[in-house]
């Protein structure tokens, strides 16, 4: 998915009116919406490149490590910025997947699967209260794996 830029460019250069076009265009729209939502709800703090800042965790090249455990997988949805975002479950799943594809880089495990609408709905029901402590614990666990 890291070559989505290429994909989009491809569509741009060669508008496709053929079979399966609507599916692809839908997929493309979802990508654009995911990016748009990232910009609207995440970028202010995490930055356009996911670099993170003073008091804001870095996403770029780091976020993928959380996918190495189920607890980590849930964590990314349970953080208040994600869980509380005014997005539908499917939209939140898309933003998270887009973010992972976009910024996670080598931090991703070799095998990983994208979030589904259903699991996002489940995880976000209980947003985290002790985010920093939880994050610390998680990272410790993950580093010892």
């Amino acid at each position, binding site marked *: 998915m890291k070559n989505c830029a290429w994909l989009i460019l491809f569509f741009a250069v060669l508008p496709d009116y053929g079979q399966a076009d609507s599916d692809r265009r839908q997929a493309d*729209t979802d990508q654009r919406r995911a990016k*748009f939502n990232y*910009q609207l709800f995440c970028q*202010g*703090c995490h930055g356009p490149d996911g*670099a993170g*800042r*003073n008091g804001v965790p870095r996403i770029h090249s780091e976020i993928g490590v959380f996918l190495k455990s189920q607890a980590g997988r849930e964590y990314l949805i349970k953080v208040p910025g994600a869980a509380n975002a005014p997005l539908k479950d499917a939209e939140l799943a898309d933003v998270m997947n887009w973010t992972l594809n976009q910024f996670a880089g080598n931090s991703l495990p070799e095998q990983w699967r994208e979030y589904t609408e259903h699991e996002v709905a489940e995880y976000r029901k209980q947003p985290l209260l002790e985010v920093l402590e939880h994050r610390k614990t998680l990272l410790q666990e993950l580093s010892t794996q």
Partner: protein
Amino acid sequence: MNILDKFMEKSSRHVAQRSSRRGLLRGLGTAMVGAASIPLLPVARASEGGAQASAPVDTGDPTTCDYWRYCAIDGFLCECCGGTYNSCPPGTEMSTLTWIGTCTNPDDGRNYVISYNDCCGATQCANCLCQRDERDRPVYRADKSNDINWCLGSSSSIYHCSTAIVVGLALED
């Protein structure tokens, strides 16, 4: 930072009489136009000339508060402080934390994602105060709040002025 609208409305009257500005406006050292006191350019304008279709169009005046990008801005316009609508004045630092909004460019009718990066690290510019609050939300929606000092993440937390940077195209709902 979005309280002074009414004040601005009042002072915009004074702006008209440039030579004898007084009252609040003078006191506050601003040179400002209240939000929306000049109608935005109609979308149609962009299409008037067919030739224009080959280049992006943005004909607004970034020295006025009415400029389309400023739809959710607060504070002092960097354009009046030695910077521009998307760059900081010399000696300052652009905030990395910011709030994000969407505004419509009347020249092409498109909604753009605007990043309102503050310029930090110099005493308040105190010029061109511009307060518009479209889709601004209280601090519980920090990502949409211009009441917060967004220089909080920079090496100096001192707010100087605000930019409005096009960082993307918005999607229609």
